[in-house]
């Protein structure tokens, strides 16, 4: 997770990612073609929210509102998830 993409800024899905969200589950194909990523329900929702217009904090707000989870847990999960996306070069 980098400063610009995930903390304080408005993280964004990588624009070259191919993806569909079907029955709440996101399937993502990155152009290097090496992996197909399948996200769980909350991960899929976060992915859907990563349009470059919402801050990490606003994404956490939405997750807290839509899923039964405490803010503390949601913050930790979203942060870790964004870090994983960053590590896989799926943000941009």
């Amino acid at each position, binding site marked *: 997770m980098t400063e610009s993409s995930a903390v304080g800024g408005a993280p964004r899905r990588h624009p070259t990612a191919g*993806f569909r969200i079907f029955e709440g*589950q996101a*399937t993502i*194909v990155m152009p290097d*073609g090496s992996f*197909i990523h399948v996200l769980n329900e909350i991960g899929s929702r976060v992915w859907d929210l990563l349009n470059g217009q919402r801050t990490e904090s606003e994404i956490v707000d939405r997750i807290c509102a839509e899923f039964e989870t405490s803010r503390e847990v949601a913050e930790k999960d979203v942060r870790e998830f964004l870090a994983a996306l960053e590590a896989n070069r799926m943000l941009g």
Partner: protein
Amino acid sequence: MNAYQAIIARNWKSATPYSALFELTYICNHACSFCYNCPTGQKELNTQQVFEALRKIADFGVLFLTLSGGEPLCRKDFFEIAREAQRLHFAIRIYTNAFLIDEAMAERLKQEVHPFELEISLHGARPETHEALTRVPGSFQKLVNAVKALRRRDMKVLLKTPITNLNMGEVREIKALAEELDSDLHFDNVITPKDDGDQEPLQLGAGEEFMKRWWSEEFKDVREEKVPLRRDDQEISAVCGTGRSGFALDPYGNIYPCVQWRRRVANILEIPSMREVWRGSSVLKEIRRVAEEIPQTTLKNSEVGDFTSFCAGVAWLQTGDPTKMYPQAELLARYRKRTYVELQARAAAGEVIEGLDQTFEKCGE
């Protein structure tokens, strides 16, 4: 079964497509002697019509989009179309002969299209073999240069080689060339008739004697299938993904159950959404019924059914009946089975042979 395989299995069962093949044009800069395309002379879709089709396909939830032809790069608006496809979040694959891909074009593909794979037809390891099929002088060297340009940019390339009586003597060299070009390679054992049923391309087939050798130990080092694989109709009962996991469109906007089985379903410009036609089409209902029936009838009644990679579209083109065993499928299955039985006997005698229990992916999986 991993999460992705679980999605694929679920989509097959519910006949929810995740891939589409779009023939953007029948214009081509090659003149391949066995090309299956049959242009009708109708006007091909213009840019805005292609965009409309792409939006309908995206709205339907399709993830994988293959841009094909003819030669798709022959379209002057190819990059406009590909950019629109990317804006709609498709995972893009391109089928091409690579004739137009130089360094500049490779860079544009990398920067503007971001395909996850390019599939390129390679017909031989030498210029004279490749060009005997493409009938375009210089096309071999252009292909080699194109692949190098793409690989220099870390773009994934799959070379596809239909085995013919012209290139069957150089399959080892073709494999070596693919390795030299740092690209994946797929040999195709089956030559298909033209889309209008013309059987002439079948004369280019490698023939029985070669297929017998191909499936023997002699070519084990060249084959992708080191040990012949078997069918598995337990998890997914349909013979293939026709009208189920994907569909195809021609340059006029006509929708087909797959690229091989050309039963017209509708025209994408004349329907409000793919969803309606996908569930309501009597053609698709019949296609799916036939695809479910084949493993229970044709393949069950055949001695080599367990080893048959069966294409209902080719069966339809070759015999007029999509459920009828056709000679190419039966021949390949016979030699696949023969090798399998030999290996099974060696395993029974104590030799360690890995992969005897593996099954092959169905077409469209």
